[in-house]
């Protein structure tokens, strides 16, 4: 059974990597805290988090450069406990690319195959094929310092993939590239992965990168995995304030539940004169403090007062950031809170668009807010 959510097929019946209660300590510092995670064959799994959250340490444990203080790691059913990096069916693409400066591109890519003691003809053939795949065929004889950043990255990729590893680990693969190149490379990576069918584990702090590349994302904070899901799940159904805030932007309203029914909930918040009405039930203690998270694109701006008692606010447009395809509006609502709203610029006439200091009404659908209890 395969489902396609986000990017890449996710075969949930084929668990390829299992990380079981893995903890890593450096002295007193806990870098990875009791992480349990499954990664499926053929997917692109992204470990997403800020610096110091433990994602790189976890990646290095998969590669074999660090050993878990406790817990076990299984790759394709095998316990990797005593397996050293050069014995694992895992290859890594380093953040700095780590190309061998004294070898040519060909030499770099062939290195891994040479360790497998394959016949020279076969090595040459596979290297040539891989270089063609990453479109570096003409640069085979060059040395790393003679290549641009994007070219070096492709060499690093070719070098790791030519060994046909079961698992490819990528450490901040797009970090060193400029914006245009990054976008192009993102799609190239996805295509490459689909073509070769290798399971990818990507570590990144860039949420855009994660959203584009991943079939599933694991958000990490301070050594723990806080949420695992497809990009859609993470974005639309975050399980905590941290995740909601970390991915994209969000408007957070803190309040109390005043009505708690199986099919709807009403929340009162000091930030708004009205109540927030949500059209599904949630499990929380009555009277508990909750947060309503509403994404900027889910909010509508209107000049006319909307119908209904809830899910609306009046305010004044304080700031507009024009992005070309859309605009970000910062609206100060009655009560003082700044609400962020994004609207596509679907109308070309400037006169028709909302402008600074205009009094407006904000409104959103009852299904739009995500209610968070932590």
């Amino acid at each position, binding site marked *: 059974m395969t489902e396609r959510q986000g990017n890449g097929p996710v075969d949930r019946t084929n668990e390829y990597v299992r990380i079981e209660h893995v903890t890593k300590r450096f002295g007193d510092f806990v870098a990875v805290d009791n992480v349990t995670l499954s990664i499926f064959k053929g997917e692109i799994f992204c470990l997403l988090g800020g610096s110091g959250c433990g994602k790189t340490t976890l990646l290095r444990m998969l*590669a074999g450069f660090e050993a878990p203080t406790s817990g076990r790691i299984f790759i394709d059913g095998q316990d990797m406990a005593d397996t050293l990096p*050069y014995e694992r069916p895992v290859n890594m693409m380093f953040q700095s690319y780590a190309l061998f400066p004294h070898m040519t591109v060909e030499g770099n890519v062939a290195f891994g195959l040479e360790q497998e003691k394959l016949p020279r003809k076969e090595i040459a053939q596979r290297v040539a094929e891989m270089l063609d795949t990453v479109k570096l065929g003409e640069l085979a004889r060059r040395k790393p310092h003679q290549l641009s950043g994007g070219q070096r990255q492709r060499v690093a990729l070719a070098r790791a993939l030519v060994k046909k590893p079961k698992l490819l680990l990528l450490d901040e693969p797009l970090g060193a590239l400029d914006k245009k190149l990054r976008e192009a490379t993102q799609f190239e990576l996805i295509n490459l992965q689909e073509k070769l069918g290798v399971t990818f584990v990507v570590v990144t702090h860039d949420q855009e990168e994660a959203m584009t590349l991943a079939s599933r994302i694991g958000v990490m904070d301070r050594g723990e995995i806080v949420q695992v899901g497809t990009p859609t799940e993470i974005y639309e159904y975050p399980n905590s304030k941290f995740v909601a805030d970390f991915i994209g932007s969000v408007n957070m309203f803190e309040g109390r539940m005043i009505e708690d029914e199986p099919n709807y909930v009403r929340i009162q918040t000091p930030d708004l004169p009205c109540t927030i009405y949500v059209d599904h039930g949630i499990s929380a203690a009555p009277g508990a403090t909750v947060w309503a998270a509403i994404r900027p694109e889910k909010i509508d701006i209107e000049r006319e007062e909307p119908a209904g008692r809830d899910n609306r606010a009046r305010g004044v447009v304080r700031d507009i950031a024009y992005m070309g395809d859309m605009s970000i509006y910062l609206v100060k609502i009655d009560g003082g809170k700044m609400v962020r709203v994004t609207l596509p610029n679907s109308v070309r006439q400037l006169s028709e668009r909302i402008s600074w200091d205009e009094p407006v009404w904000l409104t959103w659908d009852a299904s739009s807010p995500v209610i968070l209890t932590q």
Partner: protein
Amino acid sequence: MKSQSWFRRLALFFGFAFLYVPILSMIVFSFNNSRLVTVWDADDSPTLKWYRQLLENEQILGAAWLSIKVAAVTATGAVILGTLAGLVLARFGPFRGRTLLSGMTTAPLVMPEVITGLSLLLLFVFLEQLIGWPQGRGFSTIVIAHVTFAMAYVTVVVQSRLATFDDSLEEAALDLGARPAKVFFRITLPLILPAILSGWLLAFTLSWDDLVISQFVAGPGSTTLPMVVFSKVRLGVSPDINALATIMVTIVGLGVLLSAIWMRRQERRLALEMQMAKADK
């Protein structure tokens, strides 16, 4: 700050004058006809007679040849041992005896040579009593002694080079399936080769130049060049020594100059290639 640059220039001028005037005076007076090294005999100078005398002096030539042999063997041995020690200290984790190894490799750097020389001679004597080797002192004892103190310097050079070495290169090699020994020989060693070479040259110079330790551990029939020079120079100045000094300074100076030029050229070529690479995408 104008006054700053004035001060800087004076400091450099006097400093380099202090460093180089003695050497230059030695060179100049090697061409002086008079035996009195400090009085310029204007009538018959400049002359090459001291050079001729030097090249006919069997004792000095023999000692020079011995010193070269000793230095070459020492440098090679010191480089092997020093690289191993440097590798161990820079890359291996804690092990029993690590502090001892670390101490033993840095102590020779500051230890007064008389102590090192004395202790080694005593060792050789003791060994000779115990197991019959070494039979008297000579080439091998000098080499052993020189290797022991020269390897300390090589260790420091190699250790510091490994510290600034990007170890993600080694990790990448491990990741691609190479065992640690393979990684060392195919990745680390080629890239630290310049440091190892400079370590070799350093060890060579230290051995070639050593007097005190050699005096202790040399035997009859194995006299190194510094020993010959020292016994001559104790008695006063001697112009053929000036000639020797000039020859040495010239060789060293040329060597340093050539290597500096060659390295500049390398750097420039490298920088150019990197610039060109940035231009493509």
